[in-house]
C-alpha cells in the first residue's frame, strides 16, 4: 500500500510536467470552406433610374448598416463573423461584408440594422456618419432606435427638381435566403471550397409600385407628397398622404394585412397600411437588399412600433 501511495504521488508530480503540452485535444477539424459575402450597389443606385412617370432619379448617398452573416445549424461553422459594417454603396461597385468559414450544406442569412458600437466603416464612410446612424431617434414606426438606411438623392423631370433625405430605422434579419424560388439551402461548402455571394442594395425599391422586383418605378407620388413645396420630400410628408390617393398601391391598398406563415406578406403582428409613408416604410424598405442577383430571403422585421418580431414582404430581399 505504501509503495503504491509513493508511486501515486510520484505519478501525480510527473503528470504535471507531462501535462505541459496539455490534455486539451488539438484541433483536428478538416480545413473548412470559405464563404465571402460582398455588398454591391444595384445598377439603379450607380447610374440612377428613369421612372415610368418620367422622373430621372439619382441616389447621391445610400448608407446602410449591414452584417451579422449567419449560416444555418446544419453547417459546422468554424468562425461566424458576427460583426457589421456601415457602407455607402454609391462609392464603390463591390465591398467586402465578411468571410465565414464552415463545412456543410445550410441556410444563409444576414441583418440590416442600425450599426453596432464595433461596426466597421466602408469606403467613403466617416465616424460622423456612423454616429449619425447610431444616434437614437424616433419616427412614426420606431419609438427609439438608430438608422438602418439613410437614402439621399434627387429627382428631376423637365425643370422640376425634388430632393429627398430619408432615414429608416427598422432592424431586419433576412433568413432562409434562396437562389431561386424553389431552391434549397444556398450554402454548400466542402472542405477547402470557396463561395462568393453578393447582396445588392436596390435603393430604387422604394420607388416600386408593388413589392414585385419587376414592378414599375414611379416618383410622382413622392413629388406630390411635397405639400409645402420646398422641393424636399420628408418621411412626415409621405405619411401624410393617404394610400388611397396614390394612383396604384399595388397589393397594398388601404387596410390591415395579416398573412400566415405561408403567405408572402408577413408573419407576426398585422401591419396597417393607411398612408403612402406606411407603404414605403413597412412594405418597400425591407425589400431593398437582393440576394445574389435574383435570390430572395425571408425578412423578419423588428424595431417597429408594437412589434414582437415580424416578417415583412419577402420578394425583394
Amino acid at each position, binding site marked *: 500500500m505504501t509503495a503504491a501511495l509513493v508511486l501515486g504521488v510520484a505519478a501525480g508530480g510527473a503528470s504535471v510536467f507531462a501535462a*505541459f503540452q496539455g490534455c486539451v485535444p488539438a484541433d483536428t477539424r478538416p480545413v473548412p470552406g470559405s464563404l465571402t459575402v460582398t455588398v454591391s450597389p444595384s445598377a439603379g443606385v450607380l447610374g440612377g433610374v428613369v421612372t415610368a412617370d418620367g422622373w430621372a432619379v439619382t441616389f447621391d448617398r445610400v448608407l446602410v448598416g449591414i452584417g451579422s452573416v449567419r449560416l444555418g445549424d446544419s453547417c459546422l461553422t468554424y468562425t461566424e463573423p458576427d460583426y457589421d459594417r456601415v457602407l455607402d454603396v454609391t462609392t464603390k461597385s463591390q465591398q467586402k461584408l465578411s468571410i465565414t468559414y464552415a463545412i456543410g450544406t445550410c441556410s444563409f442569412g444576414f441583418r440590416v440594422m442600425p450599426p453596432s458600437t464595433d461596426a466597421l466603416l466602408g469606403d467613403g464612410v466617416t465616424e460622423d456618419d456612423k454616429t449619425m446612424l447610431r444616434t437614437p431617434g424616433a419616427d412614426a414606426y420606431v419609438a427609439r432606435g438608430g438608422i438602418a438606411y439613410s437614402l439621399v438623392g434627387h429627382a428631376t423631370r423637365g425643370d422640376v427638381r425634388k430632393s429627398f433625405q430619408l432615414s429608416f430605422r427598422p432592424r431586419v434579419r433576412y433568413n432562409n435566403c434562396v437562389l431561386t424560388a424553389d431552391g434549397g439551402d444556398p450554402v454548400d461548402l466542402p472542405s477547402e471550397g470557396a463561395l462568393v455571394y453578393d447582396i445588392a442594395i436596390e435603393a430604387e425599391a422604394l420607388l416600386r409600385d408593388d413589392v414585385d422586383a419587376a414592378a414599375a418605378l414611379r416618383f410622382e407620388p413622392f413629388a406630390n407628397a411635397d405639400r409645402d413645396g420646398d422641393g424636399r420630400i420628408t418621411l412626415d410628408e409621405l405619411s401624410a398622404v393617404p394610400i388611397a390617393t396614390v394612383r396604384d398601391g399595388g397589393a397594398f391598398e388601404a387596410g390591415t394585412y395579416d398573412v400566415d406563415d405561408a403567405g408572402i406578406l408577413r408573419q407576426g403582428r398585422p401591419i396597417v397600411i393607411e398612408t403612402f409613408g406606411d407603404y414605403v416604410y413597412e412594405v418597400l424598405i425591407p425589400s431593398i437588399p437582393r440576394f445574389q442577383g435574383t435570390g430572395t430571403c425571408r425578412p423578419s422585421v423588428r424595431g417597429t412600433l408594437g412589434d414582437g418580431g415580424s416578417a415583412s414582404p419577402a420578394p425583394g430581399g
Partner: protein
Amino acid sequence: MVESVDLYPGGYPARYGRFAGGIVAAETTKPRSDLHGEGNIRIFDVGALVEGGFAGGKGTALVAGRYSYTAAILSLIAKDTQLDYRDYEARATYDLGENDRVSLLTFGSYDLVGQTQAGIDNVLFASEFYRLDLRYDHRFGPNTTARVAVTGGFEQTRIPNQPRNSKDTMSSARFELEHVATARVRLRAGGDVTRDGYSSDTRPYSDPDDPTTKKFNALFPPRDDVAAGLRADVQLDLGIWELVPGVRFDLFSSGPTSKIAVDPRIASRLRVAKLVHVIHTFGLAHQPPSFLVPVPGLAVGNLNGGLQQSIQTSAGVEVDLPEATTATLTVFDNVFQNMSDTLGVSQGDPVDSAFNEPRSLGSAVGMEVYVKRKLTKRFGGYVAYTLSRSTREVGREKFLSAFDRTHVGNVAAAYDLGRSWRVGARFTLYTGTPVVPPGGNALIPPPRSLSPDRDPTFYRVDLRLEKRWNLTKTAWLSFVAEVFNTTLRKEVLQGREIGPVTIPSIGLEGAF
C-alpha cells in the same frame, strides 16, 4: 485533504494579496503516517482519498481523486456529445531530520465539452490546470520556522467561439518566516516572485477584419507577467486586545508596464466583556485587471490601464452564547477603484461585451449576521444573513451592480435522530438582481437606475438524510440520500425562467 476554509471578505492578513475582492483560503490537513482513507460513491461521481506513512513514519504519501461519470453517462445517451471531467490531488512528505521536512504537493483538473457534427469532432469548451509545489520546511528552534518553496504550473482553456487555446505556464518561488518573539508577539513575513507566461494560439480560419478577434488579441496579448511581493505582519496579544498590523508590497510587471502597490492592513479584536469581542479590520488591496470570471490560462493584459484597488473596512461584534453557540454581527464598507468589472457594469448581453474592459468605481456596503452552533452537538447548524448594496459608477452614471442582491440568507441545521440516523436541511433565499434595460448597444444607452426593476426572489430547500454504521473503532460506512432544491423552485435571471434545477442523489460514504 482540506482541513479548513476561511472566507475573508476584506481586511485579510498580509499573506493574502493580489486580489481586490474577498479571499477564500483553504488549509490542507497535516500529514498523517497512519494508514487511513475515505471515499464516497454517489449517483454522479465517485471520490476517494488514501494516506499512509513510509520509511518508519518519516514519510507520508497521500493520493486522492474524484471522477464524475455524469459525463460518461451523458456521452453514452447523447452520442454526439462529449463530456469529460476529472481532478486529482497528491502529496508526499519526508522528514530529513527532526527539524527539516520536504513536501511535494500536486493537484489538477480537466474539463471538456465537445460535439460531433457532420462526423467532425468539435471541442466547444475545454479547460485544464495543474500545479506542482515543492517545499522545504526548517525549524530553527522552538520559536522560529522557515519555508522555501517553488511552484510550477500549467493551465489552458479552449476559448468558446474563437476557438483557440489560451495558455499560462507559471513558475513561482517563495519564502515564509514565522518567529515567536515573546509569548505576546508573533512575527510573520514572506516574499515571492511569480512569473506567468501567457500565450494564445492564432485564431484559425477567421475573418481578419472581425473586431472580436482584434479585441481578443488586444486584451490578451502574449506576454510574460511578473509579480513580486514582500509582506510582514505582527500578531500582538495585549491581554484583552489582539492586534495584527501588517503590510505587503507588490510589484506587478506586464510587458513594458510596471505598477507598484502598497497594501497596509490591520485587524483588531478587543474583548469588551467576558464573552463579547469587538472586531475591526481595515485594509488596502490591489489586483491587476481581471477577466469576467477566472478562466485558466486567460488573464487580461491591460496593466497600463492601472491596478484595481479596494479600500476595505469592517466592524463587528462577536458574542459567545451558551450551548456552544457563537453569534457575530459585522458591518462593512468597501470601495473599489478602477475596477475592471465587465459583468457588473454590463448593459447588454455579457457575451457581446466579454472582450471590453470598462473601468468603474464601485462600492459595497452592508451588514452580515452569522449565528452558528457546532455540528458536533446533537443539534447544530447556522443562520447567515447579509443585507448589502453594491453600486458602480462609470463617468457620471451611478447605478447598481448587475450582481447586487439586497437580501441573502442561509439557514442550515442538522439533527441527530439517534441510532446513528442524522437528518439535515438547508434553506437558501436571495432577492433578485437588477434587470438590465434593453438597448445597451445604442449610442446613448438607456440610463441605469439605483432603484431598478429586479428579478423575483428565489428560495431553495435542500434535504439530507444519513444512516451510519460503525464497522470498527475507526471505520464506518454510511448511506446518504440528498435532494438539492427539494421544492422544485425555478429561478428567474434577467427575466428568463431557469429550471427547476433539482438534483436528487443517493450514495455511500465511508472511512477507515
